[in-house]
């Protein structure tokens, strides 16, 4: 080996000296494999750009996203001062898109944190305890899975009232069952392993075993699934916004923006087209990353 010492050797060592180094080596090797696929890199780039845009929105936006200007209604893209044109109330579409990035990111982040956490808890409980707990929880999972997701989310929003918080809640309520199934399957293979018996003999209680020793091992497959689902979450949230059940006007949510531009579609195409392009690019980013991650962890599996 030419390179001796230095960060590269430390990161590829076959005999890590500490737990930190072992983790760093594993992460670095995964990154090296991930990096080989240009499409995955494109996905990562799109998502990084999304996060940057969301963070820098106040500085990137050229106008106040809510400021109306009825003299400058429905200006086409490329108009002076309005890069992507204006909507029916004369609001700058570029500024609204930039501010919408944060909203999309918030929705995805909240759903991606709550639904898998609930699914992980239910799945590991069912798998580890077995017996009637397993039967009851899996029955519940099957029932929610048997529902058409969008319709169930619609019914929940109808009951709770339209709004972005309720849209997030409705999506999370319909999104947890696949994670529960996944976590249960993983737990079943772990449940009888020697290291679990060893911890139990040392006197660890069920909560400690589940949280400290079962859940971390279920995490990687759940994370891949979450990444693949994120595009779906974005599309569902946009769909609820489009139906007028998600974020309420004048919030610059992309789905709601398409809905507003729909009325002028044939004459002023840009009002509905541009927010849709934004949704498409972001969803594509998540799909590309998810696809790459799945190949990395399991080249044979396919999306159900």
């Amino acid at each position, binding site marked *: 080996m030419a390179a001796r010492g230095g960060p590269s050797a430390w990161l590829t060592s076959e005999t890590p000296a500490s737990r930190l180094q072992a983790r760093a080596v594993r992460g670095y090797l995964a990154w090296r494999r991930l990096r080989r696929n240009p*499409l995955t890199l494109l996905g990562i780039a799109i998502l990084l750009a999304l996060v940057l845009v969301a963070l820098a929105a106040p500085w990137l936006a050229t106008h106040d996203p809510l400021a109306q200007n009825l003299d400058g209604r429905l200006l086409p893209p490329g108009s002076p001062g309005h890069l992507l044109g204006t909507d029916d109330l004369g609001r700058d579409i570029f500024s609204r898109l930039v501010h919408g990035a944060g909203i999309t990111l918030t929705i995805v982040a909240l759903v991606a944190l709550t639904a898998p956490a609930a699914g992980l808890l239910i799945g590991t409980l069912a798998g580890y305890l077995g017996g009637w707990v397993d039967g009851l929880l899996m*029955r*519940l999972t*099957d*029932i929610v899975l*048997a*529902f*058409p*997701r*969008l*319709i*169930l989310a*619609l*019914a*929940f*929003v*109808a*009951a*709770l*009232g339209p709004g972005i918080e309720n849209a997030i809640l409705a999506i999370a309520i319909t999104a947890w069952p696949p994670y529960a199934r996944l976590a249960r399957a993983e737990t079943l293979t772990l449940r009888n392993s020697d290291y679990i018996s060893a911890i139990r003999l040392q006197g660890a209680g069920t909560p400690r075993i589940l949280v400290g020793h079962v859940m971390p091992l279920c995490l990687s497959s759940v994370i891949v699934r979450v990444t693949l689902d994120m*595009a779906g979450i974005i*599309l569902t949230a*946009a*769909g609820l916004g*489009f*139906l*007028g*059940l998600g974020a309420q006007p004048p919030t610059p949510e992309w*789905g709601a923006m*398409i809905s507003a531009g*729909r009325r002028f*579609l*044939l004459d002023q*195409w840009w009002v*509905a*087209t541009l927010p*849709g392009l934004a*949704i*498409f*690019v972001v*969803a*594509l980013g*998540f*799909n*590309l990353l998810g*696809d790459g991650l799945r190949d990395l962890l399991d080249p044979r599996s*396919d*999306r159900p």
Partner: protein
Amino acid sequence: MAPRAGAGRAIALAARLLISLAATFFGLLLVTFLIARVVPIDPVIAVVGEQASPETVAAAVRELGLDKPLWQQFAIYLGKVLQGDFGTSVLTARPVLEDIARVFPATLELATLATFLGVLIGLPLGVLAAVKQGRWPDHLIRLLGLFGYSMPVFWLGLMALLVFYGQLGWTAGPGRLDVFYEDLVPSVTGVILLDAALAGDWEVFGNALSHLILPAGVLAAYALAYIARMTRSLMLEQLGQEYITTARAKGISEARIVWRHALGNALVPLITVIALSYAFLLEGSVLTEIVFAWPGLGSYITNALLSADMNAVLGGTIVVGAVFIGINLLSDLLYRLVDPRAR
């Protein structure tokens, strides 16, 4: 001895399926009932109005059964739904079940044509991707699938309208028929294509088809992506088996190996995939129907939702859920029927 054991197993299996079906349907009804309970709309005020006297309100509470314990209310609700009584729609002032029977054929027409197109194009694409695994056709098809999964269905619908109806004028616009053609053929099945064909009126048929092709095409794009992807992975599994090597060694043509031997075996699990995609299209049509002003179940549920017509929303949810459960069960049964190993 053996046949009796087989019959016993079949009965046990049927019983298990029935119990799980009943439990799932019970859950569906319980959830819809609970959703109706947490709605912020007060059902009493909705019936008697805001200025009713306390006596009227009390009478309405009794009449609606709201003074009974929750489990009793649920039992009453269960009994009604099982008799097909979903209550009356506030919006149309007709029984919800009647409304649903009127709008459902439109959704069925859309989802069926979309599934047909999806299989017709998606299946060969999936086979092609599997045969050319790792080469450019495979990558191209995979990329197209990813593109499809990333597009909001309502946006794709709007873009299709903009291009094919607005710019090129190749197809008809939103709706099921031009106003001029409405009510020209008697409604027998509710599916306009069938009705027009039955009446022998090909002009109406053509107009209906030119209205149908865009929404069905948009939905088909999603079915196609899913079917192609699953076909690819199922075909790859088959092509790696030893019987394929044997067939090659015997000198059977590659086309025959791919289309007869491998696809023949991959078709069994593909039935489930196609059934699932059909079920998803029935629900996924909600947004598409809104974009294309298609008077189907999705439009019905959404419009009911926006005007807080809870009976209609819950009735529609139950029907879609029941169809969903039914298709799942049917594909399960079909799978066991076709695959001798699953019997």
